[in-house]
Structures are given as structure tokens and as C-alpha cells.
């Protein structure tokens, strides 16, 4: 945790570091969009890109429900909330209904238990 209030580089270096990280992050976000904008995406990569969506979304959603904060918590309230939300998402394909169902289970069970 921070809070020392001391140490660290001066203001100029701090701004340069922040600007450099910002430029590098932008370069990564723009890299392949600009690289492939004329020639198109190579077929091999295009096939792989189909699976980036499900893989990345699951890599964010599943640990967030099963292992919040990095520790596996299979009996936590996030698990039933995620199961109900997953069922609602499957049946309705509605982001709003999915969220409402998940939050209702999470906070409802939290209030009961």
C-alpha cells in the first residue's frame, strides 16, 4: 500500500513515466488494427480470433465469480449469483436481466445469511 508521502522521482520524471506508459499502451491498442488495416488479417489469425472473445470474457468473468481477489472461493455468494445469472443470460440474452438476477441473488442471499 502507498501512503509514505516520501520518495519517488521528481515531477518531471513522473510526468515522463506516465506519458511513456500512456504512449506504450496506446501503441499496443493500435498495433494490429493499423498493421492489418490495408492487407487484412491473415487467415490463420482470423480463425484464432473467433475464440479470443469467449476466451477473454471467460478469463475475466469466471475468476471474478469463483476466485474474487485471487483466492478460490467455491462456497462464496458469487457462485450461486453467477449460476443464476448464467442461466438467465442463456435464456434471455439480456445484459440487464442477467445483471439484475445476479445482483438479486448476491445481495438477497447476503441479507438472508
Amino acid at each position, binding site marked *: *500500500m*502507498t501512503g*509514505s*508521502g516520501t*520518495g*519517488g*522521482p521528481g*515531477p518531471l*520524471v*513522473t*510526468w515522463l*513515466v*506516465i*506519458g511513456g*506508459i*500512456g504512449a*506504450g*499502451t*496506446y501503441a*499496443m*491498442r*493500435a498495433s*494490429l*488494427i*493499423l498493421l*492489418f*488495416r490495408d492487407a487484412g*488479417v491473415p487467415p490463420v*489469425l*482470423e*480463425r484464432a*480470433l*473467433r*475464440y*479470443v*472473445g*469467449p*476466451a*477473454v*470474457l*471467460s*478469463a*475475466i*468473468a*469466471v*475468476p*471474478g465469480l*469463483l*476466485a*474474487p481477489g485471487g483466492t*478460490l472461493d467455491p462456497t462464496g455468494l*458469487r457462485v450461486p449469483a453467477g449460476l443464476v445469472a*448464467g442461466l438467465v*443470460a*442463456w435464456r434471455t440474452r439480456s*445484459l*440487464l436481466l442477467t*445483471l439484475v438476477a*445476479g445482483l438479486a441473488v*448476491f445481495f438477497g442471499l447476503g441479507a438472508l445469511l
Partner: protein
Amino acid sequence: MLDTAPLVLGYLPFGLVLGATIQASSVSDLAGWATSLLIFAGASQLATIDLLDAGAAVAIVVLTALVINLRHVMYSAAMAPWFRDQPRAFQVVGPFLLVDPVYSLAIARFPSMPDARTRRLYYAALGALLLANWLAMTGAGIVLGNVLPEGVDLTIAIPLVFLALLVPMVADRPSLAAAGVGGLVTIAAGGLPLHLGLIVGALSGVAAGLLVDPEVRS
């Protein structure tokens, strides 16, 4: 822009904590707040502030933050086919807004949108709204500290939103394999430093999808 409401709710605690961390650090409030505009990626902003405050070497700070953001190269690849029919100016400016939730909503919503203009407006409005909210939340955290009551865990909204976007994408066996392996390997790789678990998990998921893909197998 109903899509952004749950995301704003879910990211609120993160934004406030980041703001409170900036306020308590040796980094000036203005420079710390500017990370929300210039870097615009919560986990790497938090690492940047922490390391600057701890007096880490400049190269370590920059490398750490950039490695945390490596996943954006994957987003850039996934967005590349959708950016080909966009104006040149948008191809240059658009990637600035390519953060986790923008990528996720765009990849989920783009296929059902009628034309490039609709996709461009959706992407731009979504990104601008999320950026404005992120600036407001971190700003509020800097000024007020973390004002949310203990025990109200709003962060659950983030995985729920990603789950809602994920489920309709799981339409066949390869995408199911990608999602299953992606989620489980990310948990298993949770001990890796620099948030690398997410990349390792996501790339494993993509590999699993390709392995099961009947066209790749034949």
C-alpha cells in the same frame, strides 16, 4: 447506452480506491489523475502509482505497467477486421479507447450491427462515456477518499456483465472449449505476477478453441 450503466456501477469501487491511492501517494494529485486519461487502464494505473510512490526505478515502473497492459495487443487483433472499413482518422483515434469493457461490448455487439457507421458511433459513445466516468470516479476518489460503505460489494457487477456478454458467444463446441479453458486456466494461473494469469488463460482458451475447431483439425 444502457450497456454502460452496470459497468459504471461495477467500476465505481475500483475508481474510488485508485483515487484514494493517488491522493495518499507521493505522486501529485494532478499527475495521478492524468493517468486516467493518458493510461486509461485501472490495474496498470494502480501499479504505476504504487511503484512511483515506492521509489522504484523508472524502467521497472514503465515495464511493469506495459506488461500488465499486454492483453490490449490481443484486443487490437480481435478488433482489426472490424476497423478495416472505418475512416483512417477513426483507425488512429479509436484504439485510444480500446479498454477491457469497450473491447468486450464491441466484440459482443458488432456482429448484429448493420453498418460501419453504426459500429463507429457505438464504439465512440461507449468509450467516451466510460472515459468520462473513469475520470469522474478517480477524481472523486482523490478528493473524497473511498466513501463506499464496507460490506456493499459492488465489484460483483463486473464479472456479471462479462458473463452476460460471454454466454451468447458460446454457440458451438470450439467456443465452449475456449471459454472453459480460458476461465479455468486463468484461475489456475492466478499466482503469476503482473496480472499475467489473464493472458496465459486467454491464450490457452484460444488454443483450446482451435484444437477443437473441426476446420482446423481437418
